[in-house]
């Protein structure tokens, strides 16, 4: 079966531009998470969806970041007025439900470079 997929795999943009990153979770998984991984660090939580609603968005760094999951499947992370500090790998993960064991399945990530 297909795993979590993310598009694009790489994105280069200029400072100030708007970008959208897409995540397609494993079919049937209701929980979806976004993380950001900067060079040399571990992934950091951004936002968590249970179904269509954002259950926890406490990790979003500021109001330039926004994510949606309108039909409870595919999610899009949107970054407005990008800054060079936004450069990182953006990881998406999904799990069958809010798995009490914490196990999440990750996609390959989108590498964002803001010039």
């Amino acid at each position, binding site marked *: 079966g297909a795993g*979590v997929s993310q598009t694009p795999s790489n994105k280069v943009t200029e400072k100030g531009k708007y970008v959208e990153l897409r995540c397609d979770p494993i079919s049937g998984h209701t929980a979806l*998470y976004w*993380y950001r991984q900067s060079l*040399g*660090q*571990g*992934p*950091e*939580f951004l936002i*968590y969806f249970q179904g269509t609603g954002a259950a*926890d968005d406490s*990790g979003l760094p500021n109001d330039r970041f926004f994510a949606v999951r309108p039909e409870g499947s595919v999610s899009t992370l949107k970054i407005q007025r990008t800054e060079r500090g936004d450069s990182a790998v953006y*990881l998406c*993960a999904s799990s069958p439900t*809010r*798995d*009490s*064991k*914490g*196990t*999440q*399945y*990750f*996609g*390959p*990530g989108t590498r964002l470079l803001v010039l």
Partner: protein
Amino acid sequence: DQQVKQNSPSLSVQEGRISILNCDYTNSMFDYFLWYKKYPAEGPTFLISISSIKDKNEDGRFTVFLNKSAKHLSLHIVPSQPGDSAVYFCAASRAGNMLTFGGGTRLMVKP
């Protein structure tokens, strides 16, 4: 404030020997601890986990030990193989919510 820390950025071991990766945490509310393995240009892959009510969990060559009083866990790989070379992340979860990751340890297994 890092709630999960991996103090060794890298570790090198000989093939066939034991690899021991360490992780410390500060939040006593964490109830599950996980290890993920990451190859370059790929997402993290789940390896093994342990509940906070246990002190050991074993899966083939991989064993995770948890010392709650010391807020410390470790991953043992025996015997180590060259294919185990990757970055290993320790992560912690509370009530099935988001994962809090350590900074990772790069393991190099030499043939």
